[in-house]
């Protein structure tokens, strides 16, 4: 397994280099995991991508570097302490650094000689490919998919020039992931929604959710779905509700600040029983916080948001594959139970690209709630499971109504105490019905564990790696439960495993341990130790191990 950093100022081409390199490495057979760390600016500052690649699945990034491509001196200053002993620093000879591990190449001069100074990044890529013992043959086909036809030749020349300027340092390893996808969390969410028959997406741009809208917009014509940029988040969510009411599967996406504006509308979806899916791609708060960084601090917020009481579901995405399947599932559940379903993602997951087996479409079933009604139609008919028959206006001879006031079975405004109680109970019965479709958290590790780690959402990756590392050192002591479905909270596996745990440790990217609070509220189970990280950066598997071992020492 190798770990590479590409760093520089915003605007220097880090993203393009990382995208090409990860594609090349994956085609060469490696499992690749790329994570992105960037500032809230368009030019300048310091951004970097970490590309970790190996022959087995990788679930966490790492801070220890085998090499770095430094596009400026600042990158070296910031990251040199993370360089392993035989690590390298690849940079242009124009940089000031005299670091002993520096491989200085005349990339800018070579690029000018080739005729375009902007190809210097690809010269660097060629160097990297040779250092890691890769074949030059893959380059042509990958370059073709990134550059316009007229630029392909010069970029292939650039990579080749870099390739020929160094000797191999690290052996190529044989992986079997050549035919897999490299996909980001955001793209996976978009694909999952499309697979579920999404027809309408309305949103207001907000980091880190904008990339979902961009992916859907890029393919909207082909996919026959309308993407509309709303004038504000309140419009975005109300449009999604209106489209859904009129029979088009709809979704909106935002981050915590935008979700705050959507809160009243959640209640509209709950009260009028109109299917709605909202993606909250979390970032550090409160308010503006760190716009481009990561956190998972909206859990309690989205579970309770909006005045009054109504049923909802909350699903946290654990990895890129989960992002596809759970978004697909969310749209189906929202429609079947006629509730708002909130998907919790975050910047780390949204922007990271992982290697995933190509999504299988054949087994996926989209469940539409189509009803044929005999006799009169009661939109909010009192039923045993709380789910009333739902017709689409204009597609039936019956009249369909939706109302945000308390209403009777017909959908007409009422002040009656008895009707109110009947309707509230009917709606809340849906939560009971939901329990039968909940998915238990993923159990990771040996059955005879002693210490149980609890997590949710994107800490799945770091926790998965931490369990491996811990058990390799300390024997089969550690296991974990990582939650996807968080509300209603699946309890069976949690209660079963908690019984045999000597210690229960919650690992979360927030300051108050929100999962621990939720679990205690719902089951009485208490976490004995909390590992919390809220500096805007995702915890690594190695960091979880360090903090647990530090705790043992104390």
């Amino acid at each position, binding site marked *: 397994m190798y770990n590479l950093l590409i760093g520089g100022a915003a605007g220097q081409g880090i993203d393009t280099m990382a995208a090409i390199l990860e594609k090349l490495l994956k085609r060469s057979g490696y499992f690749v995991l790329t994570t992105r760390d960037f500032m809230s600016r368009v030019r300048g500052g310091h951004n970097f991508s970490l590309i970790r690649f190996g022959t087995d699945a990788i679930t966490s990034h790492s801070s220890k570097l085998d090499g770095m491509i430094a596009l400026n001196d600042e990158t070296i200053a910031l990251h040199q302490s993370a360089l392993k002993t035989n690590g390298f620093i690849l940079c242009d000879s124009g940089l000031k650094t005299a670091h002993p591990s520096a491989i200085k190449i005349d990339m800018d001069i070579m690029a000018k000689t080739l005729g375009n100074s902007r190809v210097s990044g690809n010269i660097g890529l060629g160097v990297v490919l040779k250092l890691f013992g890769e074949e030059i043959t893959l380059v042509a086909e990958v370059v073709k998919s990134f550059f316009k036809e007229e630029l392909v030749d010069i970029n292939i020349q650039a990579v080749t020039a870099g390739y020929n300027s160094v000797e191999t340092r690290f052996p190529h390893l044989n992986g079997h992931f050549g035919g897999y996808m490299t996909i980001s969390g955001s793209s996976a969410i978009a694909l999952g929604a499309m697979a579920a028959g999404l027809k309408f997406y309305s949103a207001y741009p907000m980091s880190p959710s904008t990339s979902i809208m961009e992916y859907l917009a890029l393919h909207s014509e082909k996919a026959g779905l309308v993407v509309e940029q709303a*004038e504000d988040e309140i*419009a975005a969510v*109300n449009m999604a509700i209106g489209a859904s009411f009129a029979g088009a599967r709809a979704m909106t996406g935002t981050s915590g600040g935008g979700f705050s504006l959507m809160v009243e509308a959640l209640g509209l979806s709950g009260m009028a029983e109109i299917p709605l899916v909202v993606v909250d791609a979390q970032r550090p708060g409160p308010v503006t916080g760190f716009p481009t960084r990561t956190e998972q601090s909206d859990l309690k917020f989205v579970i309770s948001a909006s005045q009054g009481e109504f049923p909802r579901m909350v699903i946290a995405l654990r990895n890129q594959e989960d992002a596809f399947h759970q978004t697909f599932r969310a749209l189906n559940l929202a429609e079947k139970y006629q509730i708002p379903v909130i998907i919790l993602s975050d910047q780390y997951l949204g922007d990271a690209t992982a290697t995933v087996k190509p999504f299988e479409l054949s087994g996926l079933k989209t469940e539409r709630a189509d009803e044929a009604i005999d006799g009169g139609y009661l939109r909010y008919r009192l039923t045993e499971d709380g789910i009333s028959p739902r017709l689409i206006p204009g597609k039936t001879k019956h009249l369909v109504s939706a109302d945000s006031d308390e209403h009777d079975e017909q959908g007409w405004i009422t002040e009656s105490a008895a009707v109110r109680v009947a309707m509230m109970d009917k709606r809340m019965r849906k939560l009971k019905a939901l329990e039968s479709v909940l998915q238990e958290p993923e159990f990771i590790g040996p059955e005879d564990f002693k210490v149980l780690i609890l997590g949710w959402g994107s800490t799945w990756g770091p926790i998965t790696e931490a369990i491996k590392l811990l058990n390799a050192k300390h024997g089969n002591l550690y296991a974990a439960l990582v939650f996807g479905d968080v509300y209603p909270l699946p309890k069976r596996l949690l209660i079963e495993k908690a019984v045999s745990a000597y210690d229960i440790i919650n690992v979360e990217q927030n300051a108050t341990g929100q999962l621990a609070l939720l679990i205690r509220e719902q089951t009485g189970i208490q976490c004995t130790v909390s590992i919390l990280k809220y500096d805007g950066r995702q915890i690594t598997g190695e960091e979880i191990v360090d903090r647990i071992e530090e705790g043992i020492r104390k």
Partner: protein
Amino acid sequence: MSTNAFSTYETAWCPGCGNFGILDCLKTALEELDLNPSDVLMVAGIGQAAKIPQYISTNSFCGLHGRALPAAVAAKIANEKLTVIVSTGDGDTYGEGGNHFLHNIRRNVNITHFVHDNQVYGLTKGQASPTSDEGLVTDVQTTGNINTPLNPVLLAIAAGAGFVARSFSGDKDQLVATMKQAIAHEGYSFVDILQPCVSFNKVNTFSYYSQRVYHLDDSYNVTDKAASMQKAMEYGDRIPLGVIYRESKPTFHQKNAVLKSGGPLLDRINEPEVLQKLISSFI
């Protein structure tokens, strides 16, 4: 078709409320246009005016205060075959919903928007609205409203609306005619309907309006934008009623790459090959 197709129900409005006239005219307009109740969607927010969908036999969506337009526009995007009519008040539209009013003029989705403008907040019992006269005394504006009232007709024309009209709940023939034209117009059509609020607005009463309104006649050119803006600014002792401005503009559906052909969005079937290709592009 039965003249009772758009039947009405017992209302919660005060006797003498302008909403009665508006409801009556709406029912007549819909019948005269020979529309099927199940093909009509009334959308409202919250307010006295916004109760109107409860009192007429059509599909209805009563959502959040100020947020009728986003829901209405999206419902039309989902199913262009629906006749979508937003019917709601001046507070709902110009206050809470101001941002949506502005930006949906820009979208030009083919819906109709009737604003019941009684220049006061009725449901919440008498506060000033965005169109209240300066000096109106209320329980909140205790020494009289000091904010300049919005001129919604002027605002709509300036923002680019393609059909802008003003009517009066007491002039029912004119109102029915205007409603029919508005519904027939291709694109966003906006009608500010003046009406009295017998309980909370003692200034802009039925006789106040009756003394001031007059009909624009055939000599008025509805397609001259600059002249229309001048006409829109004429508001005080004389209040012109009728279509103030009209322009034929491409609608949202005609401009949108997905909607311009292929029929109603909700009926479209996704080709699995499309998604398969997208998945392959990540390999």
